[in-house]
Structures are given as structure tokens and as C-alpha cells.
């Protein structure tokens, strides 16, 4: 209020003003971070994507079985892991742990890493099954990771979706994704 006039008067302490602005700025950043930040996603085992994809040559659909027909790609369950890990694979401690966990009947519940806001309706079927998009388009180099990332590699927000839709000449109708 009357900032310039006050400066002209030269009686307002600069420290006072800049100090409070600084505090407001910091508080704003803290609030924004707290409100928007997502907690890290812990996984039951340290899954090595690169080993499974690049080295063993498994395709994504092997574990994410619903990727071409479901809304969600699906996460592997203990059964899928048991196919190979019933016996310990390799020498790593983690591989041994997987075998032990499976033997103990641990369900190995993997958690969704890429989560969309609940008001976004996305289906893998449409994007992967029908439009045949590549996984890395949205998931980045997830197949190259050697340990489970704690946070998504790509920030998928509305702009991200819209940019691609525009490029591809796809629908920009709100109803297409929000309902």
C-alpha cells in the first residue's frame, strides 16, 4: 500500500519489507511443495527393470499383462515372479530374498508408481492397445532402471497429455479424460 510514496519518503526500513517478503516467499514455496509433492513409492523388492527387459529380453506385457486391454497395465503378482524365481536366480542378495519371500508365501504387492489424479480417466487399452504408443512415451526410461524409482520418471500432468494430443491431432475434449 503506497509503496512508492513511502520509498520516496525514505522512512520505511528496507529490511522490514524485504524480510517479510522473503518469509512469504519461503512459506509459499514450502506450502506448494507440501501440497503438491507425492510421497515416495516403496516397492516390496528392489526390482531391476533393466535386467528383466534388456538382459533377459522380456517384453513389458510379460509382467504388465493388461497393458493392451485394461485401463491399467497391471502389476505382476507373486505367481508371475514364481515362474522364474522359485529357484534363486543369479547370485545377488535381492534375488535370494525374492525366492525366500515367495517361498514364505509373500504376495509381493507392487505399488503403482505413475498415478494420475482420480478425476483423470486414462486407459492403456486406448493408448497402447489401439494407438500402439510406446511405453517410454509416457514412462520414460523406466525399462532401463536398475532399482525401483521412488518417484515417477516423467511428470505426467495435463500439459503433458495435451501437448501429445495436440501433436497427434487427437481429441482435446475435456470429457475425453474427465468425467
Amino acid at each position, binding site marked *: 500500500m503506497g509503496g512508492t510514496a513511502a520509498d520516496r519518503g525514505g522512512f520505511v526500513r528496507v529490511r522490514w519489507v524485504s524480510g517479510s517478503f522473503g518469509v512469504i516467499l519461503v512459506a509459499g514455496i514450502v506450502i506448494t511443495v507440501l501440497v503438491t509433492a507425492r510421497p515416495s513409492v516403496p516397492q516390496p523388492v528392489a526390482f531391476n527393470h533393466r535386467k528383466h527387459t534388456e538382459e533377459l529380453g522380456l517384453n513389458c506385457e510379460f509382467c504388465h499383462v493388461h497393458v493392451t486391454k485394461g485401463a491399467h497395465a497391471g502389476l505382476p503378482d507373486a505367481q508371475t515372479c514364481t515362474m522364474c524365481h522359485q529357484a534363486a536366480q543369479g547370485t545377488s542378495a535381492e534375488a535370494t530374498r525374492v525366492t525366500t519371500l515367495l517361498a514364505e508365501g509373500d504376495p509381493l504387492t507392487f505399488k503403482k508408481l505413475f498415478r494420475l489424479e482420480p478425476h483423470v480417466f486414462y486407459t492403456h487399452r486406448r493408448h497402447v*492397445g489401439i494407438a500402439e504408443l510406446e511405453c517410454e512415451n509416457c514412462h520414460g526410461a523406466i525399462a532401463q532402471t536398475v532399482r525401483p524409482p521412488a518417484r515417477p520418471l516423467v511428470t505426467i500432468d495435463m500439459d503433458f497429455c495435451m501437448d501429445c494430443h495436440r501433436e497427434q491431432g487427437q481429441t482435446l475434449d475435456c470429457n475425453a479424460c*474427465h468425467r
Partner: protein
Amino acid sequence: MARWGMVIDLDRCTGCAACEVACKSENNVAAVSVEQADMGRASSWMKVMAHVEGEFPDTTMHFYPRPCMHCDNPPCIRVCPVQATYIDDEGIVGQIYARCIGCRYCANACPYMVKYFNWYGPEWSEAERQHLNPDVSVRPAGVIEKCTFCHHRLQKAREDARAEGRELREEDYQPACVDVCPTNAIIFGDLDNPSHAVHTLKDDPRVLRLMEDLGTQPKVYYLRPRD
């Protein structure tokens, strides 16, 4: 581009309300408590309205199933300050719940009263959540909601058609109320497509549109009772 519309034959509607319940089931419309209902806060995107005339024994009663009219010139979308309600290219008036600020201006602007407000968050018990439709969001407290012509079904139908490499057929996309109607009183399709039933029915001499004089150009047509 399709222009979706609906024709409701008042001669065929028996007021059984299957459409109402099918709509609630399809679109996760929660029932409210007794107290809330008494206050007039129940939601029913599709509502069967009764129109009674005359006294015993010369009474007549007709049932008007009333969904959103999906006007071509909707008064609701103009007044929305945040573009949370809009009309898409195919004439479906949508409501973006994630953007709505809950000012209820659209509800007041709609002469058909088809906009419903979530006074509280929906009351689903843990068990009831099992039957929620995953294709449709569960609206939070404080936003307006309304009939969408089961727009998600169009998405699905189009997806299926594309997956099978064919054109969208009339029967692929039918809203839940149309699907369930035991007397086929509700007919739905593309008003601009001559092969769809609604295309010819909309020019039937019995046709009546609610409050047509307001210039809203509703895309829900009623077929006047014959007698």
C-alpha cells in the same frame, strides 16, 4: 461429426423408473439420507416427472423422463465462470467436476433444473463402494453434476469400434437409461445421421421439446401422447 440426441415416447413410458435407477447405478449417483432427501437434496440425473391433469374419474397422467436436455444453445455454459460446463463438438454438454467451484450459477440458469449439487460428499458405505462404476468419477462435495448422456459409454464404444477397425454403429452407444427401458420408450442416436432412428423421429408431427420458446434448442425430443 455426430450430434447425439434422444427421443422419448410419452405414449410408451409407463413411469417404472428403471431409467432412473439404471442411471444412478451407471453414474455412481449416491442416495442421500432421509433428512437430506426431505430438504430436497436428492439427486437423480434422469428423473421421471409426473404430469397429472383432471380429477377423478377423468384424470390423466403422463410421465416425462427428464434427463439433461443437452441443449444446442445451453444457458448453463454461458454463465459458468470457470468453463467447468461446456458443450463438446458432438453436442454433449459436459461437466468437469475437477474444475467446478460450486457457485451453482449454472443450476440457476438451467430452466430444466437438471443440474444437481453435491451438498455433502457422497455417502457410500464400504460395501457399496464395490459396485461403483470405475468409468465414472465419484463426485466430491461441493460440485455440480448432471446427466452426460453416459458419455463414457461413447468413449468405450468408439474404442471398441476402433479396435475392431469399423465404424461406430447406432447400437454401440446407448446411454444406460435407453439400454434398460423395458418398453423402449427412449430412443437414442445421432440426430444428423439418416440411418439412426432418432433422425426421422425428431421430425415426427408428435414431437415436442420442453420450453422450446426459450431458444435453448434441446436435443431431447418428446413424442406427445397420441390421445
